[in-house]
């Protein structure tokens, strides 16, 4: 392949602008006082402060994990701004019209329209700017169905009982280093509650935007699907271009009760740093879903294209009998990006099933690892897993690794795992060009074919976007 493919992958990052907005930023550093300050700024109930302090004290005792296949200079946790928010008017916002127009403009520029009248598609959005939620659309329409969709700070004020019951129930505060850090300092995030036997009338979506340089973003998402309910949730993220690395340590918790179904899709496009690996987001995220009830289902779909470093393992804990876990992932790395991502499927209940489809594409000098765990517990009779991880290498400086852990403690279980590594073949490209299709088109077609199994799982609008995103990202890399 020629240099054209190389030029194909090097599309500039178009979300790299900074919005000039007055913000309320606390000084750098982390201490018990900072944790108290964050809690006070958000007028949180007492139990929340205790939750945070407990997490902070745990975090102090923990060490950063070193097992991922990624390399980065040590992070100075005292050099991070733990809270930054656009200055708000003192009173509570009544409608979107009162949101700072600069903010609305910023989101408009990102392609996220927050004004409901202009929204054509049936998607409710919670927009999070730096540490706080600025607006949530379609709230009233959702409220009619009993669906609660709001920022987590608002939920803390209005539904503290739900938060107290579920927060930290799936990802305990001391789960891992970054989860503990997040539990101590998380600023905002989305909260979704779907009542019994309700099918959420529209797609719910959160859009995360980091704006301030040097600030960390620590958001927390909690989704609860009551018995017999159904919800589909999307998440998107971008950040401006800075030369420094920024830390993003989020925690997502999903709870699915009897017969409930949660579908969680992510298109992650944080700033990935420049081609020399300068700048970019460190994306250290803990995502876990608990299939607590019988016949419940949690499905993760992710398209990971951004971030300098990705460390992310959306997991399913299949406790309820007959529950189902799914994981569909496309992870694309280019230049000097590093990704160590995968999933964990923990089978605890009887007849639980899980599917893992992971597609990794590594170009440039990047490193892309799949790390997964399939665990069949001693009581998980009749459990079934199928995993497939394929890697595609573009250029001979890229690296693709697979680390699948399979742990089976029950002889009625069935686990299958397969993995392959390949590149785009000369003969395949020749076939395309012989049919009059240009090299670029051929490559982008092959890549979208390679990722089809995953894109098919995304909601329509996202699938189109994801496909486009991939071809843009890869522009200039195949050669």
């Amino acid at each position, binding site marked *: 392949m020629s240099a054209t493919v190389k030029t194909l992958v090097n599309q500039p990052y178009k979300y790299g602008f900074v919005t000039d907005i007055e913000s309320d930023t606390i000084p750098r550093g982390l201490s018990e006082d900072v944790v108290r300050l964050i809690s006070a700024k958000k007028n949180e109930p007492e139990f929340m402060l205790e939750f945070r302090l407990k997490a902070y004290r745990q975090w102090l005792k923990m060490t950063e994990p070193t*097992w991922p296949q990624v390399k980065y200079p040590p992070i100075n946790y005292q050099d991070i701004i733990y809270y930054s928010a656009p200055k708000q008017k003192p009173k509570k916002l009544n409608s979107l019209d009162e949101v700072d127009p600069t903010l609305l403009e910023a989101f408009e520029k990102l392609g996220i329209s927050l004004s409901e009248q202009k929204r054509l598609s049936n998607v409710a959005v919670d927009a999070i700017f730096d540490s706080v939620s600025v607006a949530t659309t379609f709230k009233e329409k959702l409220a009619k169905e009993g669906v609660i969709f709001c920022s987590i700070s608002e939920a803390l004020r209005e539904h503290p009982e739900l938060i107290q019951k579920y927060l930290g129930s799936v990802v305990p505060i001391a789960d891992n280093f970054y989860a503990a850090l997040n539990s101590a300092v998380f600023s905002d995030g989305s909260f979704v509650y779907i009542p019994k036997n309700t099918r959420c009338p529209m797609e719910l979506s959160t859009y995360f935007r980091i704006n301030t340089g040097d600030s960390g973003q620590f958001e927390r998402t909690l989704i609860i699907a009551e018995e017999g309910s159904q919800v589909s949730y999307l998440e998107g993220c971008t950040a401006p271009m800075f030369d420094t690395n920024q830390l993003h340590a989020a925690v997502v918790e999903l709870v699915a009760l009897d017969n409930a179904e949660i579908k969680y899709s992510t298109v992650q496009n944080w700033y990935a740093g420049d081609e020399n690996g300068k700048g970019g987001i460190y994306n250290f995220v803990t995502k876990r879903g608990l299939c607590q009830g019988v016949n419940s289902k949690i499905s993760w779909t992710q398209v990971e294209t951004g971030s300098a470093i990705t460390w992310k393992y959306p997991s399913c804990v299949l406790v309820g009998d007959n529950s189902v876990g799914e994981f569909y992932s496309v992870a694309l790395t280019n230049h000097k990006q590093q990704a160590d991502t995968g999933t964990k499927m923990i089978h605890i209940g009887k007849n639980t099933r899980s599917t893992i489809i992971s597609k990794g594409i590594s170009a440039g000098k990047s490193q892309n690892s799949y790390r997964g765990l399939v665990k*069949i517990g*001693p009581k998980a009779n009749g459990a079934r897993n199928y995993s497939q991880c394929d*890697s595609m*290498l*573009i*250029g*001979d*400086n*890229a*690296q*693709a*690794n*697979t*680390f*699948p*852990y*399979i*742990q*089976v*403690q*029950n*002889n*009625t*279980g*069935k*686990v*299958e*795992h*397969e*993995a*392959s*590594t*390949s*590149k785009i073949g000369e003969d395949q490209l020749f076939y395309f060009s012989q049919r009059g299709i240009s090299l670029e088109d051929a490559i982008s077609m092959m890549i979208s074919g390679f990722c089809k199994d995953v894109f098919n799982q995304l909601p329509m609008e996202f699938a189109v976007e994801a496909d486009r995103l991939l071809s843009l990202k890869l522009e200039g890399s195949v050669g």
Partner: protein
Amino acid sequence: MNSQVLKSTSINRDAYLTGLLNLVSRVTPPQPSPPAGRGPERVLEGWLEELEGWLEGLRDRSSAILLEETFPSTKDEAWRFTDLSPLLQVTFQLPETSNVASIPSSEITPLIFSEAADSRLVFVNGVYAPQLSSVAGLPVGVFAGNLTALPENYRSSIPNYLGKQHGATEVFTALNTAGLTDAAVVWVSKNQVIETPIHLLFISTLSDSPTISQPRCLVVAETNSQVTLIEDYLTISDWCADKSHPYFVNTVTEIWAQENAQINHSRIQRNSNVAFHIGKTAISQARHSRYTCNAINLGGKISRHNLEVYQTGQETETTLNGLTMIAGEQLADTHSALILNHPHSTSRQLQKNIARDRSHVVFNGRVFVAKAAQLTDAGQLNRNLLLSPKARIDTKPQLEIIADNVKCSHGATVSQLDDEEVFYLQSRGLDKVSAYNLLVDAFAAEILNQIPLNSVGIMLSQCIACRTI
């Protein structure tokens, strides 16, 4: 025995390792074996001195390495699923050397394979037993014997091979080297095709106290040569229930395949169920060489096999077949690593594991394809059969790939016997137990059929048959 069993909590891992080191480094220099060469006596003595001096340096270096190391625990990734704390509870002694002489040759007779009747080396508790060995059937062009009997023309190259494989700093390998006084050596000269298979029999005997033995093996296949090896670890009188002291076998086998050499290596581990067996097989493959390993793991209370293949030239062929079949409370761990640094190589790996009762199988298969290793074709398949509800399998096929123009794949499956297959056999008049056994046999046969010696295959199928339900 109780006096030797300490509470694991009170044991400091490092102190334990130092204890082991002090024990194994209490060595006695090798004694000249019965005349092997025609050389005058003083030449032999000169060689022994030289060898002893060189070995001492090797031992010292390994001891120094070992002092820096810590005894592995389940916190180390490589030992995550294999808990060695039962080993820590035992204080081992060096075996009595008099045991060697006490074994009557009638004990050995049933262990001899007819194809390799006069091409066998016998080591008892890691010590060469010339009276039990026989190399009369070997053609010219190959040397099989212990280190001291090495022919003159090979002596000067020993320092280039012994203890020179990658991974020599790994704890148990270093422990073996720290106590190294003698080794089984198979050396095939240039352009020699040795059709007679060579049987390396490493016998452990049970004694009144827990013992440690450290067999060592060196294989060099020079350019264009061919050889077939059977490396066999077993215990005699393991049917004596009252002598069931635990014992520890820590083996290291270094294999060098030079250009265009071809080695077929079968490694059979059938130590008794009170044994701790930790074994390392390290292979270097030069350009155009072909190496096949058939690793059969049946014995040991805790057994571990580290199988490491390093490529040093292009267009190599590597075939790794493995079968682990364990029951009771056994734990068997296979860690294989295939390091490909040169282009155009082909590798195939098939690892089959069968676990019954409360046994625990661990497999980690690493394939590393470096940037230079373009056009590599590497395939790996791991199939596991779980035969009882309490059995457990932890497997991790691991691919690390930097080269882009390669074909690499791996697969892993875990399941039990297919009900439909059992039903089919029952419909043909087999009872359920026979049907099960037949299917398990068939599962194992895929690996056993790869062993080039007929009698070994038959012996192993019997071994497996007597272990089935």
